């Protein structure tokens, strides 16, 4: 080890962060020691609420106004925690820079990219606006933005999420920082973009030699880029060490649980004799986009000529990135939005039926949403939410019967039925998704369309929900249409997989065939980006 690598550039000592709220003090961070050496990449891993972001926000003096800090953050032999804003501004944005999770909102929508890039350089580097603009152009080239001369005059809304994150990285590098803090920089991005951004960060670090603190919940990323890892849970560091050691010999139970959280296993196949439950033929969904007055209307083909058949008890996984039309397909199959083509469910053609005619069929075909916060009516009790479907489909039931059925459904999803008079906001994300599942199960459906049911959840909770879905399928012989961008989950749950891109199917087939031997270039890129191949390598090793 060289001297450079052992010099600590940023040393957080016994940092505590408290928030004063109406309901009392929340201890977000409870005495954390984290350091990063020059040129090193350190990852801080944890689930939501573990305090990993707040630790770095506190170090940068970016806490909300009700936040209190204690401890030390040492940079260049001086404590920067609690410095005056003027003194702090000589360090942040210059020596320590940060990129954030939300590329869509982290840039000011009202100014051009060029101006925002130049601002910190003028502020800290003593450059004139003209010099700064020239350097901004170089930086855009450095982070591989296409057409940098044009983009430098562009506004953030004219760029994609991945491009904005590149701009943020360019901004972070502008003043040759010693430390770059990356707070979940790829979480909001599609997997392929995610991989590109990670590669870019790794390459730039190699070239420029700054230290990187990488905050993430994704262990795949950690393994790929980090030298050392800190594992955080409820405001404390529970384990730390070199990446290889953490992954091969985790000591703390929580670390082991995190590592084990990736869903595994395969779905037992369904016999070919099982009847076909759902058949879609040449389903097409088009949206008209208004381009403004007098301009011709632009037609977006969200789902383009897709056909598939699904046997009872099967799971069809639909994967693709955002905007690929996978959610639209799910809704079109349920006849929730106008589509052309033919959909046959239980031998009945349902495409073209109006809402009234669909009503009786709705009992057998259900939908579960991604966002467990948005899909539950906030002013109804859990009991009311779960039993609402019974009001429609089994109107003969008395209030008491409905209540009993709701209790039963709650038990099936492993929730305490005595909580049925509570409201959704009193539950955690995982519990809410269980409630949403209970709402569909109470009707005893045949087909369930699952639209990213695990994407908004932490890994460990994700695994529990996947297990729950698997059990329910086994018990009731359910048929799933599983929509997800998360290839690991799809792999664990599906019989067959359909890969979608821009409304079209690029590849479809049995799950193992797709994952073991992808044919299409895009499928290969997706799987590569999701680092599934790496995991396999490690598993086989």
């Amino acid at each position: 080890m060289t001297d450079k690598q052992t010099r600590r550039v940023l040393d957080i000592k016994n940092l505590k962060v408290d928030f004063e709220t109406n309901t009392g003090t929340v201890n977000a961070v409870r005495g954390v020691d984290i350091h990063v050496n020059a040129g090193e990449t350190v990852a801080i891993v944890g689930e939501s609420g573990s305090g990993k972001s707040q630790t770095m926000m506190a170090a940068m003096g970016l806490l909300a106004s009700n936040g209190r800090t204690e401890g030390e953050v040492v940079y260049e032999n001086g404590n920067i925690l609690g410095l005056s804003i003027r003194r702090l501004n000589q360090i942040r944005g210059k020596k320590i820079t940060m990129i954030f999770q939300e590329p869509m909102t982290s840039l000011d929508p009202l100014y051009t990219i060029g101006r925002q890039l130049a601002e910190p350089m003028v502020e800290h580097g003593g450059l004139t606006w003209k010099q700064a603009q020239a350097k901004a152009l170089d930086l855009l080239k450095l982070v591989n933005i296409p057409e940098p001369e044009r983009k430098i005059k562009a506004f953030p809304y004219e760029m994609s999420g991945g491009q904005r994150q590149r701009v943020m990285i360019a901004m972070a590098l502008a003043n040759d920082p010693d430390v770059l803090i990356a707070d979940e920089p790829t979480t909001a991005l599609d997997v392929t973009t995610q991989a590109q951004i990670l590669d870019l960060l790794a390459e730039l670090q190699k070239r420029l030699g700054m230290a990187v603190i990488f905050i993430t919940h994704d262990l795949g990323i950690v393994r790929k880029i980090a030298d050392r890892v800190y594992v955080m849970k409820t405001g404390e560091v529970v384990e730390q060490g070199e990446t290889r050691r953490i992954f091969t010999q985790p000591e703390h139970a929580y670390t082991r649980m995190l590592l084990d959280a990736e869903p595994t296993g395969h779905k037992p196949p369904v016999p070919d004799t099982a009847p076909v439950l759902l058949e879609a033929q040449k389903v097409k969904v088009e949206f008209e986009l208004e381009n403004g007055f007098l301009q011709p209307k632009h037609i977006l083909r969200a789902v383009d000529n897709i056909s598939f058949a699904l046997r009872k008890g099967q799971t069809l996984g639909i994967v693709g990135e955002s905007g690929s039309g996978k959610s639209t397909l799910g809704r079109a199959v349920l006849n929730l939005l106008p589509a052309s083509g033919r959909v046959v469910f239980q031998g009945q053609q349902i495409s073209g039926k109006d809402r009234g005619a669909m009503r009786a069929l709705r009992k057998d075909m259900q939908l579960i949403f991604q966002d467990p916060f948005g899909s539950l009516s906030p002013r109804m009790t859990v009991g009311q939410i779960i039993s609402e479907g019974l009001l429609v489909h089994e109107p003969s039931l008395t209030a008491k019967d409905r209540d009993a059925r709701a209790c039963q459904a709650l038990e099936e999803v492993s929730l305490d039925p005595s909580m049925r008079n509570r409201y959704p906001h009193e539950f955690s994300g995982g519990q809410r998704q269980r409630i949403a599942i209970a709402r569909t199960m109470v009707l005893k459906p045949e087909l369930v369309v699952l639209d990213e049911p695990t994407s908004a959840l932490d890994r460990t909770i994700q695994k529990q929900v996947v297990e729950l879905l698997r059990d329910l399928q086994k018990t009731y012989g359910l048929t799933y249409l599983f929509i997800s961008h998360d290839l690991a989950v799809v792999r664990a749950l599906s019989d067959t997989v359909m890969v979608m891109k821009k409304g079209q199917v690029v590849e479809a087939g049995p799950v193992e065939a797709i994952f073991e031997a992808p044919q299409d270039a895009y499928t290969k890129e997706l799987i590569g980006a999701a680092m599934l191949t790496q995991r396999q390598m490690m598993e086989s090793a």
Partner: protein
Amino acid sequence: MTRYVLGRLLGAIPTIFLIVTISFFLIRVAPGGPFDLERPLEAKVMENLNKIYHLDEPLWTQYLLYLQSISQLDFGPSFYFRDFTINELFAASLPISIQLGLSALALALVVGGMLGVAAALRQNGPADYSVMAAATLGVTIPNFVVAPVLTLLLGVWLGWLPVGGWGDGAFVNKILPVVTLALPQIAVIARLTRGSMIEALRSNHVRTARAYGLRSYLVIVVHALRGAILPVVSYMGPAAAALLTGSVVVETIFGIPGIGRYFVQGALNRDYTLVMGTVVVVACFVIIFNLVVDLLYALLDPRVRYD
């Protein structure tokens, strides 16, 4: 840009037409007429008057006649101020009201904006609470209370300012009316600015600006305030139209010969042309200011420009 403005102005013509039509018939179905005085006029005189003002013709013809004259920007003769045309009345009074309104608007923007920003920066502190309490007071005390109190205090007791009158637009004569007009607007603008400023200060891009060590001026004014001022701009449209077309209360109390007083006098005396004229003028102001607001919005927010 020019095309857009022209398009918007052309698009306003049907709106104005509808407004004219609705107002015209609404006024005419109401009972009473401009010459129903306490002492009835002689039949002969009445007949002559009706002839001069075309009141003897069917309503439909009158409507068409009015449309014709208004399309030439001629608002017709006044029924009540019989020696004047409506155009003459407006030419004399509108500039005064606009002058007062603009001054009040500028004052309200500057003072209200600064108070709002100051309150947002000290959110939930004593300064915030006092600004907000003062703003609530400003919204709740009607200006016909404020005006006499100010007059009594500054005009009568201290004798610093004239009690009323226009004084041919002398500066001292404008102070009290402008302040009275501006006070409730200051309050509204301060509240609006504070609200949107608090939101802006919490936004991600302001966090970015902080994280990059920018000076407070850049963070607060350049990055937070420019976005936060947008709701205020939206509010300014209707508010400006209302201010510039005169305030009945202020003009009555301070004895200012503005257009606002004609609102009431016209209505009280069934002066059909005066009523119609004010309706059209106010509607035009509303439309023009909505356009100005949209243009300002586009100037401030590139995303709107893009659409």
